């Protein structure tokens, strides 16, 4: 459930765009959301308190100075920027076993009750599952629920984006039943199909990637998002992606691969 920070009146998200990550391969969606929150300096407006995510706490991952470095952060928090009509939910830990369905239900009912205009889910999928066609060209894909087709479908055409391909439900047996599969995408398929059946305006933006140093993948995904939402101005023209320097890297990204090495090793 959404719990606002402090004792002020709960924020109004009517008409806002809700941006959230799927906990997926390479944590690309979550890293991309970190970049959006930190670059736009979005203030925290509340918590998404749930028993579906593994608990985790730490000090402010977006600290810029001594003063704001001691604010406690938990595993699911909501940030908002009314000037861009943007609300962001950041998810920082994996699901408790067998709780991901329950999380999807809670999330979608919050989307409905807060009357957000649209939802954009940032996700990723295992690169090793790409077929020969998908290995060529861009590794970025999009999906639109029927409710958002009217408003965003044309823009996708203009941006020359590629829609996520469906695969045969029974490969090798018959090719007539085509289904959507996003291996390594976490709850992406479930959230998307639930949104389709419930008339929610949802778009999924995802990148094919592998586990490793996923910072470049996160930058690619956030630039992809930026082509649509124009959150950050690109340097030369609107067609070129924003340079990496225009996205600020949070300090919590330090030591992603562990502590320093013991000198005695060498």
């Amino acid at each position: 459930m959404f719990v606002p920070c402090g004792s002020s009146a709960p924020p109004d998200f009517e008409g806002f765009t809700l941006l959230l990550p799927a906990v997926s391969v390479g944590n690309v969606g979550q890293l991309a959301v970190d970049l959006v929150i930190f670059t736009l300096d979005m203030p925290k407006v509340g918590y998404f308190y749930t028993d579906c995510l593994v608990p985790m706490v730490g000090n402010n991952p977006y600290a810029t100075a001594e003063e704001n470095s001691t604010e406690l952060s938990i595993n699911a928090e909501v940030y908002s920027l009314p000037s861009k009509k943007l609300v962001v939910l950041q998810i920082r830990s994996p699901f408790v076993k067998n709780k991901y369905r329950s999380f999807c239900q809670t999330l979608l009912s919050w989307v409905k009750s807060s009357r957000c205009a649209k939802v954009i889910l940032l996700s990723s999928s295992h690169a090793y599952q790409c077929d020969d066609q998908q290995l060529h060209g861009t590794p970025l894909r999009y999906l639109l629920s029927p409710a958002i087709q009217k408003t965003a479908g044309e823009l996708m055409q203009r941006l020359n984006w590629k829609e996520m391909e469906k695969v045969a439900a029974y490969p090798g047996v018959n090719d007539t039943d085509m289904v959507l599969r996003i291996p390594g995408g976490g709850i992406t398929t479930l959230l998307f199909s639930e949104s389709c059946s419930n008339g929610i305006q949802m778009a999924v933006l995802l990148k094919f990637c592998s586990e490793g140093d996923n910072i470049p993948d996160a930058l690619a995904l956030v630039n992809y998002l930026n082509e649509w939402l124009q959150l950050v101005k690109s340097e030369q023209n609107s067609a070129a992606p924003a340079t990496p320097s225009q996205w600020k890297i949070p300090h919590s990204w330090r030591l992603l691969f562990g502590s320093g090495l013991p000198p005695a090793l060498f």
Partner: protein
Amino acid sequence: MATFFGEVVAAPSRAGVDEEEEVAGEREETPEDREIRRELEKKREVHILWSSKLSASTGSFTDEQFPCSKFILAIGHNSVAFLSSFVLNSGCWEAAGSVKLWNEWCRTSNTTSVLPTDAFCLFYKLISDPTVLLCQCNCYVAEDQQYQWLEKVFGCMREEDLQVTILSTCPLTDYKTPESTLTLPSPFLKALKTKDFKETTCCPLLEQPNIVQGLPAAVLSYCQVWQIPAVLYQCYTDVIKLDTVTIEAFKPVLSSKNLKSLVKVKLNFKD
């Protein structure tokens, strides 16, 4: 992912929903699946047995909340041993309740006379001020049980200017630092506090990118969301077993506002 020897190893996915769960999730849950899941959930339920709420006449538990102004929670055998040695030893405490739970790692013991190596989770009340509650949690509370534990314990409290103190330990190798943890002097204490905790902490705060997980994180998250002043003192140690050096590392906490008044014995600090 292929290793140097050429064999293909399935790398653990950070997707949070592993392949089997994803495939299982695609098909509808049958009544048998639901029954199995319900039975498993029942087996893993967390039960809190409050001894003071036991009604003398009916022998049943009441649903009343009790007032609580201070809640001190020790998680793990070193934190538990610290509170036993420096706080509970004053003899001013009485047993107030226990937690009954089971998971793959432990089953809590039913008695109150426990050994440091037993799995138990016991509550004590200060005789002179029953709004002060202390909990010794010497058992592993699994991921799916943490929220239940939290809601059931805090659900029984009628918060009256409640202040929460949590003591916990974790391996030194979990600490992220630009230098190697091999050369880091240990054990050492780090603190995390909620927004509403206004006192100064007895040790430096835990710096990013370090995080805390498990039951200490669950309790601190609850306090942050529901605006309860709370502080967690986490001891980073390179000793896994019960260890006096690790226990002593918690000593600075005795000067904190919540614990100062509870320590009767005059301590002889070596340092």
